[in-house]
């Protein structure tokens, strides 16, 4: 039973990758957490306080390769045939296998009393991010073996993965510069809880006709797995000394440390049109605490134990087998080290153009700003536009393009729907709702709604929800 559960879990984890695009949240000005996606957003809030652990929970799932339904649909087909057809030979090494989540611990924002043009926000959130790509050749070798595959190279670079879990301490400033321009910046201090990275693997394994013997097995490897924090977690788990307390300690500046910055702006081109942009997590983490790295580097070709007379007669009692093992170990040494390393955060870039229309609600305006006294672009009942999202990934940038429509019903209700095209889906329709009931703000967003017609077949899904206490305008 456990074995079966593990297999299912493996499939879910393997074929339901997670993406990070928050196209519904981006520039959804009525949602307080949108300031985390653009520190230069135009906001009409005077203050907000997120409810801890409920104010900004997000989870996203996507697959660019296959879905659970592809394998477990009750369709009468042999699951082994489905695995071979849809995974082994159906997925590409560029198909993603990854994950991310975010949970807010603290999130507070307030407008400066001295200078209402300034809006400050700070908080702590926990973020987990991992990505792997379909290790196609490893899978073929594992499922099929190397028999009858002479001269076929199994590419070791198909193993490409990275991931980490961090606590992020942040403080941001949002400032209206003039009637048209708002800029923002957020400083981040990362406290790394654990990290793993194996993204620069090279080499191959191949079986060829032997020079002497029937077959030659050749391994050319330049592989490395870097880890930080995982050993202490394993030790704590093995010794029963408390994984939770260890995670908390490493997450509260007791692990690896790093710094980063978010930058963003909103610029009002005219009364109805604004453009925005932001770059998030421009930073790095230095991993020097509980680091353990594993390397396999070298090359060797073996044709089995070889005994050649008359040379071998000189020492007929030698252990040819052990000599062969030692030779391979010497040519392709497996080593461990504790060298510190740096990982760059998965930097994200957002941009948008937005056209607001309808009669502007004057009760929903920006602050009573000194810098130009602009009404800003808040309070319009309708908005349409397009958004661009780019994230830096181990195999290069990934891009998503979104079209959106937003409808506001005064301050109380805001709805946003999006249509997004990315590597996961070309039919991704999302829907988000933001409700303000007095000082209580509640929002919920769901992605790829069409896919929910059959969740198991969906290759992308996400949700975001949160509860905040807010006030509007000038404090």
């Amino acid at each position, binding site marked *: 039973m456990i074995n*079966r559960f593990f297999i299912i879990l493996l499939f879910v984890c393997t074929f339901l990758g997670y993406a990070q695009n928050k196209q519904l949240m981006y520039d959804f000005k009525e949602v307080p957490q949108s300031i985390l996606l653009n520190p230069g957003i135009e906001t009409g809030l005077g203050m907000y306080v997120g409810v801890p652990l409920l104010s900004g929970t997000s989870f996203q799932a996507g697959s660019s390769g296959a879905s659970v339904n592809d394998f477990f649909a009750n369709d009468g087909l042999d699951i082994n045939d489905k695995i071979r057809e849809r995974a082994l030979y159906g997925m590409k090494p560029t198909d993603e296998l990854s994950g991310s989540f975010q949970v807010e611990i603290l999130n507070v924002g307030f407008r400066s009393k001295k200078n209402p043009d300034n809006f400050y926000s700070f908080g702590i959130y926990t973020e987990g991010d991992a990505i792997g790509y379909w290790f196609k050749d490893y899978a073929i070798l594992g499922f099929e073996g190397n028999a009858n595959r002479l001269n076929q190279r199994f590419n070791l670079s198909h193993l490409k993965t990275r991931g980490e879990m961090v606590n992020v301490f942040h403080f941001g400033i949002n400032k209206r510069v003039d009637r048209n321009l708002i800029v923002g910046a957020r400083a981040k201090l990362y406290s790394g809880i654990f990290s793993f990275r194996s993204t620069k693997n090279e080499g191959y394994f191949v079986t060829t006709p032997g020079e002497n013997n029937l*077959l030659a097995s050749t391994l050319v490897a330049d592989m490395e797995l870097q880890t930080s924090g995982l050993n202490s977690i394993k030790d704590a788990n093995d010794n029963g000394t408390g994984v939770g307390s260890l995670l908390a300690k490493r997450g509260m500046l007791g692990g690896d440390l790093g710094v980063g910055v978010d930058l963003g702006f909103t610029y009002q081109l005219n009364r109805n049109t604004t453009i925005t942009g932001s770059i998030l997590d421009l930073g790095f983490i230095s991993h020097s605490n509980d680091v353990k790295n594993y390397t396999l580097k070298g090359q060797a070709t073996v044709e089995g*134990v070889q005994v050649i007379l008359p040379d071998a007669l000189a020492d007929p009692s030698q252990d040819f087998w052990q000599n062969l093992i030692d030779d391979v170990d010497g040519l392709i040494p497996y080593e461990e080290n504790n060298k510190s390393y740096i990982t760059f955060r998965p930097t994200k870039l957002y941009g948008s153009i937005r056209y607001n229309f309808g009669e502007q609600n004057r009760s929903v305006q920006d602050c009573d700003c000194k810098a130009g006294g602009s009404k800003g672009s808040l309070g319009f009942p309708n908005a349409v536009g397009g958004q661009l999202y780019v994230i830096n990934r181990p195999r290069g940038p990934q891009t998503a393009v979104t079209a959106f429509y937003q409808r506001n019903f005064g301050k109380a*209700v805001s709805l946003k729907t999006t249509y997004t095209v990315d590597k996961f889906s070309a039919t991704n329709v999302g829907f988000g709702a933001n409700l303000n009931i007095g000082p209580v703000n509640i929002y919920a967003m769901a992605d790829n709604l069409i896919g929910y017609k059959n969740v198991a077949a969906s290759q992308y899904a996400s949700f975001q929800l949160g509860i905040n206490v807010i006030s509007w305008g000038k404090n």
Partner: protein
Amino acid sequence: MKIPHYLFSVLFLCLSLVSCIEEQDFDQADDIVIEPTLEASIFYFETTEDVINSNPDPAGFYTNDFNFDAFKDDYFSDNVIEGSIFYQLENTTSKPVIVTIELIDDGGNVLDTTVLNIGAEAVNTTDVEVFYGGTSARPLDIIRNTSALRLSAQNLGDDTSISSKANPKLIFRSSANFKISVR
């Protein structure tokens, strides 16, 4: 504030799209079979005709035991399903030869014996494939318990002649091909 009635339509539409799932049969996970077939060379032996001539022992000009732990590896021995060992003998010397390969366990007991004959200056190689497990007569325990190979070579000809072929040799080659049950 009055919320337009069509808002509820939109919400209903969205909710109606949510939470459907086609029938899945996760019991299929029990049927997943992962059985790769692996192959590699295992043993190579080569001798010159001079060596054969230099040891005219009628019982054999060469015999030796070789440690061979590949089959004793716990993972392999626990999971091997079936397979074969392929032997090939090539002879360009001037005498017919018999090569005997024996699989030996930790106690020195012979588990299996394969004999390969080849004529003098043979044009063709002698090829023998021995199957273990599956439908073959040889049980897999032979493979699981093998920890050494014994190779013996016997000269069936004279001990003075030299082949007219360039660089005459007796060459023994072998490879293994086994299916492993990963799951």
